[in-house]
């Protein structure tokens, strides 16, 4: 069985009076089982050219309902540049330069597309989808 893990570390020495040091690892498995996910899009890198607009990064009707996990990173180095992330038509948040995110994606409806909207031309996005097939 393939083993895929995701580890997050959140740390700060000066946000609180006590040091913040949180680290946890998840093994990515199919929904409701201990069987590892067996699919991935692989690590991708996409430069969104001029005339920036909203793009469908992953189309909900191409994936079965499952415990997919999505990694996104804004590779921009310009602080004010961000990607707006939407699922279907609901805005989740803005991924600013250098920021990354990782979240489960259910794809429980054909309309539950992952959409990204760059705030500027020629921004670069890194992404990887782990697929519960």
């Amino acid at each position, binding site marked *: 069985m*393939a*083993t*895929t*893990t*995701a*580890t*997050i*570390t*959140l*740390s*700060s*020495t*000066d*946000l*609180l009076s006590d040091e*913040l040091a*949180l680290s*946890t690892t*998840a093994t*990515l*498995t199919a*929904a*409701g089982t*201990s069987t590892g*996910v*067996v*699919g*991935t899009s692989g*690590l991708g890198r996409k430069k969104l050219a001029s005339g920036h607009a909203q793009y469908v990064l992953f189309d909900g009707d191409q994936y079965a309902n499952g*415990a*997919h*996990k999505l*990694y996104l*990173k804004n590779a921009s180095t310009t*602080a*004010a540049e961000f990607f707006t*992330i939407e*699922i*279907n*038509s*609901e*805005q*989740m*948040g*803005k*991924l*600013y330069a*250098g*920021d*990354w*995110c*990782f*979240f*489960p*994606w*259910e794809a*429980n409806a054909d309309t*539950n597309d992952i959409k990204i909207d760059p705030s500027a031309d020629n921004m670069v996005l*890194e992404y*990887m989808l782990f697929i519960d097939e």
Partner: protein
Amino acid sequence: MATTTAAVTLTSDLLSDNMSVSASTTCMKAGTTADGLDQMEYGYLDLPTGDEYDLIATTPTATKASKLYLKNHSTDETYYIAITQNTQAIGRLYGGDWMFIPADFHDSDGDIAITANGGTNKICYALFHEGTALLAT
């Protein structure tokens, strides 16, 4: 300036070549490299089945760059938390899973809502933000 770092490492042997992807970011206020997120709330709680609850209501406002961490500490792999935002399904966090997302709470309906399935789920969460409105007494 408060400095909070969020790092991720993804590893897998799914592919012919072993994969290891790492990224790290300093959690900054929206659109700046000069000032870090300087406020947080942190909690650990039992989430019973039966109702949908707002984990985070929409007090941080749009244009800001809040970051939300959420982990399902349940040890039963069949238990999960359904995550929705303004009734839109995002995904399911099964026992042991975590997520880290930007959350700009762009309007009054943009709450992050959670529903336990399978049994009482244990969750841990942290919201890093740059300001929330306290409710007046």
